[in-house]
Structure formats: structure tokens, C-alpha cells
């Protein structure tokens, strides 16, 4: 069965039997990419508990728009796991079909104040969708958890 938990942050969490995903919307693709990333971190921890203590510059490339979104989210999963980073906000300065430049605002994991909720293994191409609608753009990504 499908369940939606609407959170008015530009993304909602979607669930299926063995999966968790994010449905995100925005006025433009930059916002959709930023919201998808926030959605990812909302699965990992409570976003409210993450402070903007540090700024990180992130660059990602990919062969097309869909791959770019997957590579962007997998880049953040890598930074979370290997660099122990949590993010609270993203600002995307450049976005083409093959390249993304972003600034991420967040801090290092501190287990005394951040509860880690779900182990996200990776973002997948499964049921991936990026499309334009009357209000702007929207995307759907399923994560392997």
C-alpha cells in the first residue's frame, strides 16, 4: 500500500512495502533538486536538530538530468556516511542537465543531539521521475533503505 505524509517543505515522504521515497516539487528544477536533498536528510534525522555551523561547496556531474539527480543524492549519502555530515539547507547556484553546483549548510554528526533514524544505502533509478507541471517542476526518487 502507498502512504503519503505531507510535510509542507517542498517534499513529502512516500512509502511502499520495502521502500522509502521522496516526492518533491518546486518552481524550478533548482528548487526540486534542493528539496529532494532536504527530503533525503529528513529521512536520516530530524532536520530541526541540525544547525548551520558550516558551509560546504558541492559539485556533481552526470550524463543526463536523471543521472544528475541520482548522483547528487548519492554524493550526499557518501558525505553523510564517510564525512559524517548532516545538512539543514541547500542553495543551488548552477544547474544544467549534466552539472550541478551547490552550497550545503549543516554540521558534523553529533550523536548527543542528532538521532539517526534510517540507514539510507543509496538513491535508485527505480520509478525515478522528473517532470514539469502547471506549478513548476516535480520529481520522485526511491531510496534503498
Amino acid at each position, binding site marked *: *500500500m502507498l502512504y503519503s505524509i505531507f510535510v509542507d517543505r517542498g517534499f513529502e515522504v512516500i512509502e*511502499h512495502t*520495502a521502500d522509502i521515497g521522496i516526492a518533491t516539487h518546486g518552481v524550478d528544477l533548482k528548487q526540486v533538486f534542493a528539496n529532494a536533498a532536504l527530503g533525503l536528510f529528513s529521512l536520516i534525522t530530524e532536520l530541526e536538530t541540525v544547525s548551520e555551523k558550516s558551509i560546504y561547496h558541492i559539485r556533481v556531474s552526470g550524463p543526463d538530468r*536523471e543521472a544528475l539527480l541520482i*548522483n547528487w543524492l548519492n554524493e550526499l549519502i557518501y558525505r553523510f556516511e564517510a564525512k559524517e555530515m548532516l545538512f539543514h539547507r541547500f542553495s543551488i547556484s548552477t544547474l544544467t542537465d549534466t552539472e550541478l553546483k551547490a552550497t550545503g549548510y549543516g554540521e558534523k554528526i553529533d550523536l548527543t543531539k542528532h*538521532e539517526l533514524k534510517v540507514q539510507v544505502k543509496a538513491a535508485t*533509478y527505480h520509478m525515478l521521475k522528473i517532470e514539469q507541471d502547471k506549478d513548476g517542476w516535480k520529481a520522485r526518487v526511491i531510496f534503498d533503505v
Partner: protein
Amino acid sequence: MSVPWEGVLNKIDDYRWEIPVSYKTGMRVPGLIYSSESLLNHIWEENAFEQVANVAFLPGIVGHSLAMPDIHWGYGFPIGGVAAMSMDDGVVSPGGVGFDINCGVRVMRTNLMEAEVRPKIDRITTEIFHNIPSGLGTKGKLKVNDRELTAVMIKGSRWAVERGYGEPDDVKTTEESGCIQGADPEKVSNRARERGIPQLGTLGSGNHFLEIQRVDEIYDAETAKVMGIQETGQVLVMAHSGSRGFGHQICTDYIATLGQAVRKYGFNLPDRQLVCAPIKSPEGQAYLSAMACAANYAWTNRQCMAHWVRESLMKALDKSPRDIGLEQIWDVAHNIAKIEEHTVDGKKVKLCVHRKGATRAFPAGHPDLPDIYQKTGQPVLIPGDMGRYSYIAVGTETAMRETFGSTCHGAGRLQSRSAAKRGVRGIDVIQALAAKGITVKTASISELPEEASSGYKDVNEVVDVTQRAGISRKIVRATPIGVIKG
């Protein structure tokens, strides 16, 4: 998001259902699903059949695109999927292995009986919980450097035993002797190394667990005896874990790389998550070499944890290793691609067998089995959920003939994680399990309801199908006494 499947299944018999090649243009072979009619109803809602049909598109697929009775919706491949590819013109697909490369199960027998363990179960589970790092964001206590990680990738379980984590016999009773040949650390990214180093020797989170179990039923006493299981009430230890962030990153890396290969080789795939490359191509070979590194890492991981369980039991019970008698029965990989010899149309051929949430189930007499299991067949380990049962079965000739020597791997989810958690508190789950005589220690009490029995299919029903279809034969059933959850 989910659309119930609208295709037609051809009934072959009560436990075999076929998706004909005519279902979808592009299918190279039919789909074959092992299931009962009642289990089919769950699967129908989930559209996992479409994934069985999609896997049948892959170049070089031989026989059928197979699904075991614990099939559920995966990414590209269904969980519970088995696909064998010809070595000449077939492909290898990282999606056919999954992100958690060599996620698997290990089971060990002991000389202990339930009556002496139960009064001390709190002490035992607490000791194990403190001795084996689990949960999210925890680091291992192994403190390996980059050079040692390279050795882990090449040697697998043997690396752990050489450092004193376990006994040489543990290696003999591990699938592939705990080491897939052909591992090439050069094919592993620095990112995978970064994720792998701190996580070696950790259980992980989600559905990974360590369980102290009691033998609940013995179906074949002679075969059970070969496994060191003599009577009901005897205590077993089961571990379920994989290659952690190391394997996840390797899969992520190769899905990106093989995305380019799909274009290069001109494959037309119905789902981008099915990216693949010819087995013989440089890309395909690179993936298999990196996958072997992750598989060997996972076996090292389970080997170290088994050793720490042994240590914990000694400490908690104040007994010698000889008195405890913890000996490994078997260790299986259930997310893996293997190069194996099978008979197709009367001819012996080498195939690349993908098992994504499926267990190898080789029969008695198979040359890859160690002497101890030559007469019984390979042990198959099938964990259920933490409130019900787990099974030990053995492989059969039917499996060899029909499923490339494969059977099911577990119960399979029934409810989404949030549905399982809705209105249920961690403490409620702990109390419900306590009422059944099961003690639980967990790193995250708020996430515990995800793993409650109600979230899973009944493993009895799944194992019953494999038994009746003849693709594995049940030997022993066990129930948990103590559970450590990541």
C-alpha cells in the same frame, strides 16, 4: 505509487506460475514464480511480477527469470529474484546483486540448552550488544588501515581467522570458503574504502540482527545431527549482516559506470535500475572484481562478529569454549552473482547466476560442498522475523534442475516501514516479545516497530512453498530467545 499487476499468470502447478514471453515484447525467456495462491495475493498488489518480466529482457538470460516465494518489490530486480546468464553473450547487472553485496546469514550450533541459557539471557544479550557495534553511525572496533582493508578484500574470512577472530573450521563451512576468487582492490573506489574502513566489524541497522535461538522442531534427525543439532531446546546463534557502506558504495559506483556501458553496447532496457554490461567486457569484469571485494568484506564482517559472540557467551556464562561448543553450521550469501556450472539442455555450461534475496541451495554430492555436507546437501539458512521462526533447510536436485540451485532467503516484508510503526511504540514491541519469552536489545528503540512480526509475511508459509515445490528441504526450525537489533 504502486499499481497492481494486470498481466496473466499461467498456472503450471500449485506452486509454479509462469509469465509467458508473450506478456511483453522484449522478454527473452518466460518468468517463473514459486508461490502458493495465498502468497500470490500479496505479490499481486505490489507489481513485483513486472520486475520478473523486466529481468527477462536482459541479454543472455538462460531458462527462466525466476522468483522465489518471498518475492517482493525491489529496485530493477525483484527481491527474491534469480537470473542466470550465459558467459558467452550474457550480462552481469549490479542491480541483480543489490546494494548490500553479500548480505547473508550465518548460523552456529552450541552445546548449550535453553534451560541454562534462558535465566541468563539478559546478561548474554547485553554482553553481545556491548561487544558488537550496531546501529546507525557507530564505528567498528577493528581499526583497520587502508593496507589491511586491501587484505580483507583479497582474503575474506581467512583474514579474520589469521588475526585470531575465529577458527579455521569456520572458513570450511562458509559458502565459497569465505572468499570469492578474482577480487581486485584496484577496481574499488576510494569512496568505498572511506565508507568501508570504519564499518568493518559492525552489525548495521534495519533488518540486520544477531539472535540466540532454541531448536523448536527437527524434521530430519539424521541431517540435523550432521549439523551438530541433536535435540529440541538446543541453543543456536544466527547472524544477519552484509558489506555495510563498503558494498553500498561499490554498487552505487558501478550503477553509474554501467549506465554508460548500456549506451556503449546498445542495450534496450525497460528499467534503468537494470543497468548491466557483458560479462566478458572490461566493465562487466571490473564490476565482478569489485563485487568480489565487497563479498569478501562481508564474510570477514560476519566472521569477526561470530568470534565476538563466542567471546560474549564465554564471559556471560563463565564457561570454556569447549563447554559452549559454538561451531559454525554454515554461512550463506543471499545478495550475490556467482560463476557456476549448471546443466542446460543436457549440456554442462558455465553461467553467471544472480541471486538477489535468494539463497544458493546445492544438493548432496555437489563438488563445491565441503565433505561434511556431501551426503546431506548444502545448508540453507532462512531467517524469519524476530517474533516467529527461522529455518535451516538443505539444497536439492530439484533446485539444481529448476532454479540454478537456488531457494528463498527469508520472510519478505508485508507492511511498509511507516505502516509498521504507526501507532506502535518500541516499548510495546519489547513487551509483546517479552510475553513470548524473547529478550530484545536494540540500538534504536524508536525504529524497533519496523521489525515487528506484523510487518513481515509468515516465514512458515514461504518455507512451506519451497518444501512442496521441492527446491529445498526443511531440516530444523528455531525460535528466538534473545535478539540484538541494529
